[in-house]
């Protein structure tokens, strides 16, 4: 066949088309009737179309005729279609109003009480990497959170204390599943750490109050840690530290990945070199094994499994006030944790999540000749479903069941007491966007416990409103229940929930590189546990305690002003009083200092391939009871707490990091309270021992090496 002839025919066809062009013109507007430039207009099924210009108008030519469909598209807006009839010549189309779609990106989010640490979130409070690079944190998740507003540093405890609440008032979750005994067991004044390695997590959600109906059994705060999705590549990670070492290996492909790790630590050699204030018989030591696996299921599903087991202990000589005597405290701990969860999206905008988790904690504590064994287990089964009815309305439904056995035993005497609780929860939460600047959230959480034999319901409500381009105002309120501590419940299984009500008002301002946050709150406490006697031998347990906490906190973070420098400043004021434990009148708890300040600065020095960091924490002192002053409780306050920590991270090669950190560089002798002898001495004075630090400073040196079969390098060699 002659190709020229074909070309001629094609030419003819094109010619006829060219003769028959019709013009389409019109205007695209937004909801307010203002011109909307940049929208994409297209005649369905053809290449013909145009983009709306600055005045919202558009115009294009087409050879199509008669009944056609015009499609209006613009990212972030709802697509609209319009049936038109095209005639020869000029066709004027009616103006079209595009409606902005409400998405996570463009809409207001509820920020009352909430602080999200993820790479994706709009406002940067904390980034996942900050957890490992905050000098005072020493690689502990809680250490990083202690630099955030609403928290207090209690240096001899190490746990997270939020807004006048004790450490048990923070509920810790991994992938939505409750973690039992998330902190390591400790003795004396040795601060504890989180059991979980920060490298496991891709992001965290930390709430200092007024949190979602999805979480409960925490009067003050919910901390939700989200594990990493699929690993990107296979690699080995070796760590060598002054206190131990470990190795972790990851195998990954596009569908699944698995990481196995083993770690060992022993503070013995370190303590041999650097003198400690605590008289250790056997330095803190331990090992752990962990496996975490991720697998894609179907189009959108992800299955995650994690299992971990660890064992550790320490033994130390504890002084008794008023005597020369020392008591040997010996601690052994075994802990296992396992969980599996699966999430997937279904048809019709449903998303489902199911999970199961189990933790088992065993402590054996020898106090002189007294040997106590404690065993706590927690099994958690959970299912949630989320339905997006539209971009304005979504609902979450969930059901949870907990099985919680606890026992404690005096080994020599053969005495044992225990309880086994079953708790069931139902919750639902509804988000309604009136428009993208105003959102309401209402939630309801109902629970029942078999041991305390009670049922309760917690309503929660929050609202957020966009103020201008970069600011937003949020308000949250709700009621929160929490069952008493295990060691109290085992003595009196009738003890019912304590209750707290929150009121929170929050202002958040964020723009590229800057975040400012101010929050004020009031919360009430009721039905707190009270008893006669001292905490190590409580009698007449009841829930007669009550109290309040109120205050305001500020947070400012700036990554922009100074080159390669990132810093944040936090100030939290808490005024808290409660009657609880042995305190019959309302007193300021020892764990709730009034003024709390934290400053963190990080600076990257490019020529030295180094990041240097400094963090400073301050509070105005911890309250304690001094029986030498008068009979009243919490009648004294320690001197202020101050801690300046420095760190230096050096990256000589892409796969090698050397990290050096020192806490309390200035060696301040921080005191967290005093222990008094129960009886006066011959001068009529109660003798005391300060509860101080384990050592003036803690020095850490670690070398972290990543080994990977670098496919890219291999590729290059092959070229």
């Amino acid at each position: 066949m002659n190709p020229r002839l074909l070309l001629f025919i094609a030419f003819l066809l094109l010619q006829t088309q060219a003769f028959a062009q019709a013009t389409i013109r019109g205007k695209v507007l937004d909801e307010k009737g203002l011109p909307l430039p940049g929208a994409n207009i297209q005649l369905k099924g053809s290449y013909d179309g145009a983009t709306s210009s600055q005045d919202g108008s558009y115009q294009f030519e087409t050879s199509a005729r008669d009944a056609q469909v015009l499609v209006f598209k613009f990212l972030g807006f709802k697509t609209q279609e319009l049936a038109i009839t095209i005639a020869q010549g000029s066709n004027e189309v009616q103006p079209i109003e595009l409606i902005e779609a409400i998405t996570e990106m463009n809409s207001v989010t509820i920020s009352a009480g909430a602080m999200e640490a993820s790479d994706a979130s709009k406002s940067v409070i904390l980034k996942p990497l900050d957890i490992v690079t905050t000098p005072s944190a020493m690689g502990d998740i809680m250490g990083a959170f202690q630099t955030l507003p609403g928290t207090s540093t209690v240096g001899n405890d190490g746990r997270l204390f939020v807004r006048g609440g004790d450490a048990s008032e923070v509920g810790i979750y991994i992938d939505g599943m409750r973690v039992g005994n998330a902190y390591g067991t400790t003795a004396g004044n040795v601060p504890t750490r989180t059991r979980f390695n920060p490298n496991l997590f891709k992001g965290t959600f930390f709430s200092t109050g007024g949190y979602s109906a999805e979480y409960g059994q925490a009067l003050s705060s919910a901390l939700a840690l989200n594990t990493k999705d699929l690993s990107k590549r296979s690699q080995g990670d070796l760590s060598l530290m002054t206190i131990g070492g470990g190795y972790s290996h990851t195998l990954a492909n596009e569908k699944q990945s698995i990481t196995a790790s083993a770690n060992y630590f022993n503070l013995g050699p370190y303590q041999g070199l650097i003198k400690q204030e605590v008289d250790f018989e056997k330095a803190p030591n331990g090992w752990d094994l962990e496996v975490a696996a991720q697998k894609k299921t179907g189009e959108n599903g992800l299955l995650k499994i994690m299992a971990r087991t660890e064992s550790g202990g320490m033994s130390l000589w504890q002084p008794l006030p008023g005597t020369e005597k020392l008591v040997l405290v010996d601690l052994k701990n075994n802990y296992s944790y396992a969980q599996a969860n699966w999430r997937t999206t279904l048809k019709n905008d449903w998303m489902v999540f199911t999970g199961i988790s189990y933790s088992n904690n065993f402590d054996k504590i020898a106090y002189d000749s007294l040997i106590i064994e404690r065993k706590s287990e927690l099994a958690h089964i959970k299912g949630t479903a989320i339905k997006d009815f539209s971009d304005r309305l979504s609902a979450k439904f969930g059901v949870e069941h907990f099985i919680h056995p606890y026992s404690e035993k005096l080994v020599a005497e053969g005495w044992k007491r225990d309880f086994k609780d079953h708790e069931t929860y139902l919750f639902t939460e509804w988000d309604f966007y009136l428009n993208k600047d105003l959102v309401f959230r209402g939630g309801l959480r109902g629970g029942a416990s078999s041991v305390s034999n009670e049922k309760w319901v917690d309503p929660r409500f929050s609202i957020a409103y966009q103020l201008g381009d970069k600011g937003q105002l949020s308000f949250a309120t709700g009621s929160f229940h929490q069952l008493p501590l295990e060691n109290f419940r085992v003595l009196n299984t009738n003890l019912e929930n304590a209750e707290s009500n929150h009121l929170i008002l929050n202002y958040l301002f964020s723009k590229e590189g800057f975040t400012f946050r101010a929050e004020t709150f009031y919360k009430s406490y009721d039905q707190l546990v009270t008893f006669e006697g001292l905490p190590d031998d409580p009698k007449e347990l009841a829930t007669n305690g009550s109290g309040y906490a109120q205050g305001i906190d500020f947070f400012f973070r700036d990554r922009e002003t100074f080159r390669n420098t990132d810093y944040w400043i936090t100030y939290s004021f808490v005024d808290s009083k409660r009657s609880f434990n042995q305190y019959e009148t309302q007193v300021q708890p020892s764990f709730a200092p009034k003024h709390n300040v934290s400053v963190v600065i990080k600076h990257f020095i490019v020529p030295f391939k180094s990041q240097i960091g400094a963090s400073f924490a301050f509070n105005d002192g911890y309250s304690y009871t001094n029986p030498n002053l008068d009979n009243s409780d919490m009648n004294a306050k320690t001197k202020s707490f101050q801690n300046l920590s420095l760190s230096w991270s050096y990256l000589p090669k892409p796969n090698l990091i050397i990290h050096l950190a020192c806490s309390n560089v200035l060696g301040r002798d921080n005191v967290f309270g005093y222990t008094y002898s129960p009886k006066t001495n011959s001068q009529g004075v109660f003798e005391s021992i300060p509860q101080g630090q384990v050592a003036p400073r803690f020095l850490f040196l670690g070398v972290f090496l990543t080994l990977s079969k670098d496919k890219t390098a291999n590729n290059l060699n092959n070229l």
Partner: protein
Amino acid sequence: MKKSILTIALSFILISLAQAADPAFIAAMQKQLAAKATIETFEQSQEVTNGFMRIAEAAESEWLPFYYAALLKTEAAFRFDIDKDKSLDEALELIKKAEKIAPGNSEITALNGYILMGKISLDPAGRGQTMSPEAMQLFGKAINLDRENPRAVSLMSQMELGMSQFFGTGPEKACGMARMSLELYKKEQAKITEEYILPTWGKTQADQVASKCN
């Protein structure tokens, strides 16, 4: 004779409708590519991006319209004063769509890595550690998929140059790759005809790396 001409003409039309690379598609692509070469403002960039998106809508089985739309969003993030992260995220979404149509395509994989490079440049301290290996892996994969793809090699040389500058090692590896990519660009140049609508961009960047080598 008449009848056979008609048959051929009809089948020609049918084939052109059925075939992916029909002249109308190529003509539409060429029009947008010509417009792409003259972009100077963000509005113009948006207009051309929309043009490619219309082609993507009408020619569902083609990966190139999505590819160029993603490339435009990436370049817009580098060139104009806009929400850079948002533009790059949108580019990533478009890459996913292209990938679905043409899985295992070297050009798409290389562009995916290029977008990650853009994301890294916005927050090197926060993202470098996790995203740099990811970008390198994508460039490596792109090279494996097509050893003649100059962009994959050139982009990798840029990453290598950045790393050698940071870690103070010599630029030899980056230079070798830049030279190699320039060779590949030369080869590609020979293939380019009037109808050529496949990617050809990136030589200037390779030249820039090569210029740091002497």
